[in-house]
């Protein structure tokens, strides 16, 4: 890939969207760390945090999770060990290997400020970075990186349309796998002439051309792995974007979630394969500068429902993973699993605001000043302290 350095800061959004974002204020920025890489992966559909990261040491775990509790470490199909109290689902061996290399931190009992049960509203709230669904029309990740001194596209959305989290004032690229045959080089060159007089289309097209040069149609990987492979190929370029966003689906496990080949197996297997693909594609050097944040819109009910699945809940788990991560650590103020401990008698009670993870990573990994984070990125978050110790110092 050959990314052209373009000094102009284009605006990706339509006027209406950009105007709805908070006015961009001047702030003292030290440039941030422009060599580090950040990937945000949204697990859409609500990952069951107690399935992914079971609290095996909680005396009430087995009864509260009757029917779907993962077996203890050491038993057949049992959990993989983390810190003695928590385990990891055995369908996530790549994540476990990262834990072993001290490259994965696990955050538990975490939730956004959303307390209803709509996937769509919850995702929108997390993406826009306010405390309301549709509270802002642009995304926190886009606003966070607006002043990173990177020429060209600062970020890339590995999605067919730019999701809310990546919309806003910062110029970002987008790419997603395609099943259509690639256009010939000659057609691409001629299409470029069509956009010469149109600044916006020219920028988009040059960005797409760079993104697709040498990409073929991604790789042999399919599904989520193809997305992660795409993210890696962008981020490993010395002059490419530094921030990538992508997403994985299939986490809404209302039925049959423990079954081998069932929905959770499919989602976790894809996630695991995606991580392995990313790690292989990005190479050792850039991996050492990378942090990947895996988040989901909310957790799921503690107890099994009538169809061997779980329903929409509240708190859940998140992963922060990569060569730059200060890993092998759990971050959890565990609320317990007795009925009285549960939120509304059914869900894991949140003890940490998800924005604490994002704020910690933005500050410690990308060097973005807290003043910018609290005035532009997460505007109502001064009471949410950045989570300490996620990134290697």
């Amino acid at each position, binding site marked *: 890939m050959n990314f052209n350095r373009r000094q102009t800061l284009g605006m990706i959004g339509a006027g209406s969207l950009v105007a709805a974002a908070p006015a961009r204020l001047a702030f003292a920025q030290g440039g941030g760390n422009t060599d580090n890489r950040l990937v945000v992966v949204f697990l859409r559909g609500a990952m069951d945090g107690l399935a992914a990261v079971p609290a095996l040491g909680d005396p009430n775990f087995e009864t509260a999770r009757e029917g779907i509790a993962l077996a203890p470490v050491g038993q057949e199909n049992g959990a993989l060990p983390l810190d003695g109290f928590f385990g990891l689902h055995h369908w996530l061996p790549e994540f476990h290997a990262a834990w072993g290399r001290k490259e994965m931190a696990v955050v538990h009992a975490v939730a956004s400020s959303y307390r209803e049960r709509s996937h769509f509203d919850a995702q929108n709230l997390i993406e826009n970075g306010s405390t309301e669904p549709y509270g802002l029309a642009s995304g926190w990740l886009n606003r966070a990186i607006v002043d990173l001194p990177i020429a060209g596209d600062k970020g890339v959305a590995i999605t067919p349309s*730019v999701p809310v989290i990546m919309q806003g004032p910062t110029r970002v690229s987008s790419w997603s796998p*395609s099943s*259509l045959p690639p256009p010939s080089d000659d057609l691409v060159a001629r299409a470029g002439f069509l956009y010469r007089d149109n600044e916006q289309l020219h920028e*988009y097209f040059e960005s797409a051309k760079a993104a697709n040069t040498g990409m073929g149609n991604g790789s042999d990987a399919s599904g989520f792995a193809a997305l992660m492979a795409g993210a890696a190929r962008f981020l490993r370029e010395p002059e490419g974007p530094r921030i990538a966003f992508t997403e994985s689906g299939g986490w809404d496990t209302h039925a049959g979630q423990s079954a081998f080949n069932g929905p959770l197996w499919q989602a976790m297997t894809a996630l695991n394969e995606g991580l392995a693909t990313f790690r292989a594609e990005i190479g050792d050097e850039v991996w050492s500068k990378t942090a990947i944040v895996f988040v989901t819109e909310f957790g799921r009910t503690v107890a099994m429902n009538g169809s061997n699945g779980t329903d929409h809940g509240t708190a859940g788990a998140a992963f922060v993973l990569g060569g730059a991560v200060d890993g092998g650590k759990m971050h959890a103020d565990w609320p317990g699993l007795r009925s009285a401990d549960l939120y509304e008698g059914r869900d894991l009670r949140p003890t940490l605001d998800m924005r604490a993870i994002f704020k910690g990573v933005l500050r410690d990994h990308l060097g973005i000043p807290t003043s910018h984070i609290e005035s532009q990125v997460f505007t109502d978050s001064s009471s949410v302290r950045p989570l300490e110790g996620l990134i290697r110092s």
Partner: protein
Amino acid sequence: MSMMTAAIAANRFGLGAKPGDLASIKSDPQGWLLAQLDGAQADPAPIAALPSTADDFQAFGRWAIQYAAQSADRNVPPFVLNRLRRQVPAVLKDKNGAQLGAEESVYATFKDRYRTAVRARFDAAVQSETPFRERLVHFWSNHFVVSSKKISAFPMPPSYERDVARSHVTGRFLDMLMASSKHPAMLHYLDNSYSVGPNSRWGKNPSEAPTLPVIGRMEGLNENLAREILELHTVGVNGGYSQTDVRNFAKVITGWMVKRGRSVFANRGLRGQSAAELFEFNPNAHEPGPQTVMGKVYAQDGVEQGEAVLLDLSRHPKTAEFIATKLVRYFIGDDPPPAAVKRVADAFLASDGDLKATATALVRSPEAWEEPLAKVKQPEEYLISGVRALGGPDISGEELEQVLSQMGQPTYMQPGPDGWHDVAAEWIGPDPIWKRLEWANDASIETAQTELAPTRLGELVLGPVLSEPTKRVLEGSASPAQGFALLLVSPEFLRR
């Protein structure tokens, strides 16, 4: 009238010019648009061939019973299951024999039905001789969204679209609102069919309430439909209602549900019934007593209470403003000019929500004719206009599903009840441009269009909107197919 006006009429208001269209409409482009609003129109052939509303609904019920029986959620006698399997063979397991989740099972069971409907909607648009009317159907379908993203509504959006948007596209807004709010697809999509008034008979005696396969026992008030009628269908999020209004309105429409057969989901005896006949007001779930919604007390009994609220909402000035703003954004520009919004809203109010009069005001708005390329085409309309221009290719439902998914707009799969968003930021960017180039390339190669030179085709479908620089690029193309691909990705063709 100028060719520029004809080009705007065919591409902005219509679904894209076919070769010859501009010449035939140029004497009176506005008249050509307005004539399309006259009278009732038979359903386009591909739409008429789709399953009935009752069939879509029953099919889902037959799947639900088979699925529930498998998950041991419900005991169903084997002879009933066998009959259901003959009618709708539910796909319950994957190729490895593992039980599928509900979403995967619904998708696997109904994907052929889905693809047929996606193809029908596309073909109707490509073939339409009244493309302004057809575009309005798409607009209203996306306003009163029912999306296949919700499994309990999966097979229903196509017949719902026909019953609600298509049937009332030039009728009264109130009738469309009423048809939507009582439609089995909407009652499932926004959960009203499972909503129970706290002081209703079933609210007080929960054990009497039916238990539904997959969904479970009906209990409690569900605010979903009431909220979305206010927020998304009528007065809009700034319409001046409170959470209490939402709750009270939800109570008003408790008991609005889908008619049940003797066996809850088998729906025996529903065959051939229209959407209106599938609606049932069930007093057992209805919250008794008067309710106050947006400052007015509604003391009516039964279904009339909700109908009275819908009538008032349909006449509310905020509704006129909300609808007008959306229409103007869709037809004139991402930042709706206030004068045009006011003109359209006034027409809506003055005509008591006559959608023909409202659409006429839109066509008569001078702002609509000023800037020929104000709107970025969304993926589906981009493909429709491309096939109309090229005269091909023939795209299967499966290919449409794949291409539109990869472009981020799978038909009938809006992510949420707010529908596809209608601003450029959603639809233009590096990946969208690239995907359009890939598709244009593929479509041009498949469509052996050799009678016209690319520049000539460009002039025929874009008229004077086709720029000189684009013409020069087309003239220099290496082959006709390449030229057609370049036409389809030209800045003038990406917009309308």
